[in-house]
């Protein structure tokens, strides 16, 4: 077996090893079987073509064909027999589209979806082709690391924080194997290898000389591992991960134990690249409000924090809000909901609708904190839980809320929930907003209404914050943020107005998948504000603009209508409509809007999909246009150069021919110009010759060149005269005392170009027009010269570094 073929095999095996990180993405191992099959086919094709000594392009072509065939066999559309047909290709396109959808709808690890498997096999196959060509044909195995790294980048992109390390080690081993195989092959070309004592060294045995290299490698790795350990700021590395106990895939397990930052968890989920389905809820309530699992009620300099919930076990029963004095005044309806949580939502607080009365099916001991209205467990998590619960949906009428008496100032609840760190901006804003408002509800509505588009607020997920109090205050001036800023800012402002408030965490409605069934993903994580009204309990206010929140239920509440929507007329009031003085919102209309909103979930999604395909088409068109434009650059450059030269050679003024034998040695401006013109014309002629594939010989004089041109292209008449004229002009410009002046060089150039074009084949003509070889040649030579110069400079630097010897400095100082 020749070295080249062996290298091809190693390249294929190394690529398969490098594909190991994909194991973190797929649930099963189907992909690897398919990849191995495809890679084997491709490498077989490569070896066959190499055996018959086919040229490089034929090797690449055969490998591509093998890839297409393998894909056809692995993912048949059902209409083809072995050979792919147009149907197959459209099937492939469908698969790619399906893969795109799957990446949006599935979290890692994904099941064996055809689309995803297709993309994986296609990717690995393409990488094998590139790696094989780079290694076995171009002998640049180091470059082959790039496509192999591309495979590794896929799990890195999917997993935000933790990437399995073992597959990377496997992939890196494959790459190193490739490098070693290539170097061994290189050394073997010199002949057999020997040890120092004359023993023959086997092919795969490392060279004895490599011992020093190994020692250096070991020391380097040790240093690389030990040094970061000593630096405290370096975190998130392999060791940190290994030492962390509760790390797991999904990155959303942070809500597990101890005091955690709910805000950080929220922004983490919203900013995650992948969409991970978390839970599914079915309810008989027509317009459910948000699912809720935690609150943050302690506002300090560090922002909102929460206390660990404390309460009674579920088994002891849940309170009924209708009977409690604190919540009696609201209007309650009983509903029933069923929740199914996937394994990706792993936390010890169970999402429920507010005021659950009966909870069934929760595995393990769970407890309910009445104050926080949070269902929690100290040991069990929600992972894979499925439970049903009955709950009371509270409806508040603005009129009644308005009549709610403010809490007395010495009430412990008021004292606990109106504490703020104090901020001049916030206080001033609140004071301005609530001036003239008497009731708590009016104050709260004034603050709530202030978070509107009209006041410059907008939704932006890119606002990164740590949730610190100062940043919440800052939000009031920069006015760009997402739910966490809106909820925290409003809670703070309501507190500043003397009304108890806190931040609630949960999920929006998500996207409706069936009647009463909603699917909720990590993207639906949400936060909103709860305000306490005496006799009503905690009333939710969602100040976040509904535009940025999928499944927002902002419009569903007539006590807190969507301030960004045009207020509908209050005439058509339906069931519960009690148009209060401040509420112009019509519940029916609000419900209608809300339905549109909820139904709009999937609609909006399909809208995004079509929009995306439109965009894709546009991108492709733009890409094609860009490629075309790039391809046209040489032609454009050629035209510009010709234009410049023509401008140089166009006769400026009619001048007489210089007298022959003139002995005047002074070079006048005109003669200098004439000389430049002749050179420009000659350069143009030479470039034209290169363009039209007429050989250019640097040993020829202008005279001989033109003679050959006339003879070879059998020019006659005007083109021949033009060639002679150009030759004479250049000859005199180079060698005579006085150049030829006033000659019609531009016209001559045109004539000779047309003559050359007439003598050339159609293909040559097309190439000369579209991809002028002269421009390409000059670019190639320029690039070659630049790289040579760079290489020389680098060599110089390396040599000076090699010569640098610290010992010499020591001895000098001594």
């Amino acid at each position, binding site marked *: 077996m020749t070295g080249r073929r062996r290298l091809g095999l190693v390249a294929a095996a190394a690529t398969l090893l490098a594909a190991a990180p994909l194991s973190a993405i797929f649930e099963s191992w189907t992909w690897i079987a398919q990849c191995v099959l495809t890679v084997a086919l491709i490498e077989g094709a490569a070896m066959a073509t190499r055996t018959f000594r086919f040229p490089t392009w034929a090797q690449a072509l055969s490998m591509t064909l093998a890839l297409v065939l393998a894909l056809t066999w692995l993912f048949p559309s059902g209409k083809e027999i072995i050979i792919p047909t147009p149907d197959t290709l459209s099937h492939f396109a469908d698969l790619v589209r399906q893969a795109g959808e799957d990446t949006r709808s599935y979290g890692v690890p994904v099941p064996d979806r055809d689309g995803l498997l297709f993309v994986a096999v296609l990717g690995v196959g393409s990488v094998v082709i590139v790696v094989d060509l780079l290694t076995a044909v171009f002998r640049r195995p180091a470059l082959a690391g790039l496509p192999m790294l591309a495979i590794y980048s896929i799990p890195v992109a999917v997993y935000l924080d933790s990437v399995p390390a073992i597959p990377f080690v496997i992939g890196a081993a494959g790459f190193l194997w490739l490098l070693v195989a290539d170097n061994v092959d290189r050394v073997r070309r010199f002949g057999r290898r020997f040890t120092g004592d004359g023993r023959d060294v086997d092919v795969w045995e490392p060279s004895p000389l490599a011992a020093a290299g190994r020692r250096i490698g070991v020391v380097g790795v040790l240093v690389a591992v030990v040094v970061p350990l000593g630096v405290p700021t370096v975190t998130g590395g392999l060791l940190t991960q290994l030492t962390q106990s509760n790390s797991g895939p999904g990155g959303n397990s942070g809500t597990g134990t101890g005091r955690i930052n709910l805000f950080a968890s929220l922004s983490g989920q919203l900013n995650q690249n992948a969409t991970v389905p978390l839970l599914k809820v079915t309810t008989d309530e027509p317009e459910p409000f948000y699912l809720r699992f935690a609150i943050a009620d302690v506002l300090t300099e560090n922002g909102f924090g929460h206390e660990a919930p404390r309460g009674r076990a579920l088994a002891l029963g849940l309170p009924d809000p209708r009977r409690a004095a604190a919540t009696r005044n609201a209007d309650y309806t009983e509903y029933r909901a069923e929740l199914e949580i996937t394994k990706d939502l792993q936390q010890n607080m169970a999402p429920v609708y507010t005021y659950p009365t009966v909870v069934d099916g929760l595995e393990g001991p769970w407890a309910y904190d009445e104050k926080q209205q949070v269902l929690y467990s100290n040991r069990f998590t929600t992972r894979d839980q499925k439970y049903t619960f009955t709950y009371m949906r509270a409806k508040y009428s603005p009129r009644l809320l308005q009549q709610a008496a403010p809490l007395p100032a010495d009430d412990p609840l008021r004292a606990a929930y109106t504490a703020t760190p104090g901020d001049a901006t916030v206080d001033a804003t609140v004071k301005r907003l609530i001036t003239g408002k008497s009731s708590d509800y009016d104050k709260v509505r004034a603050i709530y209404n202030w978070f509107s588009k009209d006041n410059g607020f907008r939704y932006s997920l890119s606002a990164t914050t740590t949730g610190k109090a100062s940043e919440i205050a800052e939000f009031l001036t920069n006015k760009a943020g997402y739910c966490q800023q809106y909820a925290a800012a409003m809670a703070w402002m309501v507190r500043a107005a003397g009304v108890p408030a806190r931040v609630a965490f949960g999920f929006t409605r998500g996207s409706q998948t069936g009647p009463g069934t909603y699917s909720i993903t990590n993207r639906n994580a949400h936060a909103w504000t709860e305000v306490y009204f005496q006799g009503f309990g905690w009333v939710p206010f969602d100040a976040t603009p509904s535009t940025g929140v999928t499944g927002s239920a902002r419009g569903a509440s007539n006590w807190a209508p969507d301030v960004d929507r045009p207020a509908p007329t209050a005439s058509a009031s339906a069931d519960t409509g009690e148009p209060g003085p401040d509420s112009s919102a019509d519940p029916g209309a609000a419900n209608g809007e809300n339905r549109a909103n909820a139904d709009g979930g999937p609609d909006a999604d399909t809208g995004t999909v079509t929009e995306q395909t439109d965009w894709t088409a546009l991108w492709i068109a733009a890409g094609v246009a860009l490629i075309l434009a790039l391809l046209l650059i040489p032609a454009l450059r050629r035209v510009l150069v010709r234009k410049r030269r023509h401008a140089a050679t166009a006769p400026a003024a009619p001048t007489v021919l210089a007298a022959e034998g003139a002995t005047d040695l002074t070079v006048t401006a005109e003669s200098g110009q004439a*000389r430049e013109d002749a*050179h420009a014309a000659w350069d143009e002629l*030479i470039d034209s010759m290169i363009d039209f594939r007429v050989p250019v010989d640097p040993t020829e004089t202008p005279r*001989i060149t033109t003679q050959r041109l006339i003879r070879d292209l059998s020019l006659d008449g005007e083109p021949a005269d033009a060639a002679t004229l150009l030759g004479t002009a250049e000859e005199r*410009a180079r*060698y005579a005392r006085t150049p030829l002046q006033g000659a019609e060089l531009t016209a001559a150039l045109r004539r000779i170009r047309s003559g050359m074009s007439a003598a050339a084949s159609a293909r040559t003509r097309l190439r000369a027009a579209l991809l002028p070889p002269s421009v390409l040649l000059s670019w190639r*030579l320029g690039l070659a010269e630049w790289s040579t110069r760079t290489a020389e400079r680098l060599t110089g630097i390396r040599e000076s570094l090699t010569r640098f010897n610290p010992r010499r400095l020591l001895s000098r100082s001594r």
Partner: protein
Amino acid sequence: MTTPTWGEPSGPLTSAEFRAAAQAIMANIEQVIEGKSATVRLALAVLIAEGHLLIEDVPGVGKTKLAKALARSIDCSVRRIQFTPDLLPSDVTGVSVYNQETRDFEFKPGAVFANLVVGDEINRASPKTQSALLECMEERQVTVDGTTYELQAPFMVVATQNPIEMEGTYPLPEAQRDRFTARIAMGYPDPRAELAMLSGHGDHDPLNDLRAVADAAMVRRLIETARAVHAADAVQQYAIALVTATREAPEIRLGASPRSTLQLIRTAKAVAALEGRDYVLPDDLQALAVPVLAHRIIPTSDAQLNRRTTDAIVSEIVHRLPLPHARNPYDTRDGRASYESRGR
């Protein structure tokens, strides 16, 4: 045919005058040597370049006839030396003879004291005699018994030799060969020229009918005019590059001398003037490289074993060597950047 005016004041000729005079001489010679205008032109160019000519070819192709026709066309002193093995150096340079009347040694000038010296079968003389020509050819003077005698201007040695016959000949030493500006071969005439020769030479020798069409003064003015021909820097560099290439070529043991560079440019100037140009072209150098350089170089024994003639080696160098500052599309030098040094 223009007859130059006698006693005209010397000075450079105009282009037209130069051409007329040169054409007259060439036409005159071509009455005798048919179909060899390139050789005749080269011979005249060597004369105008103040050089010496070595005509080397097989017997009977008109070597001596060319030399004699050139001599006859110019009205100046002509001497002919038949080089024989017993020829002595003093026969060439001259000898001091004791004059009994004046009771003193008197210098009897040898054969070289003429404007044109035709040396026939130069390789038949002994090296000793051949060496007698060294001083006069290069320095245009003769030193006998400590006295130096200037030779007349113009002074040209036209020597012939037979490369085939080796028996009883002494090959010219390198120093001697280097003094010849150019070596030309006559070559066989084509059939038509040979036919014309038969009809022309049938009854009488046309050489006898030749009349001089120029004189020594005219030749001096021709020489002066040719000297003024412009050789651009690029051309001079090309000449140097050509000569340097012969020194560096792996097939050559001894390359061309700096003198050959000078003579190459001079001859090129003469050729350019003959073609009516006042500037030298690299084409001239390319055309002259073989006649001017080939006889001076010594190929390595390998090249000799491979039967590589010096002519072939030199012409290969010509075809291999790029022109100075010519835009080479296969080189990394940018064409535009080299213009500053191109041209004059």
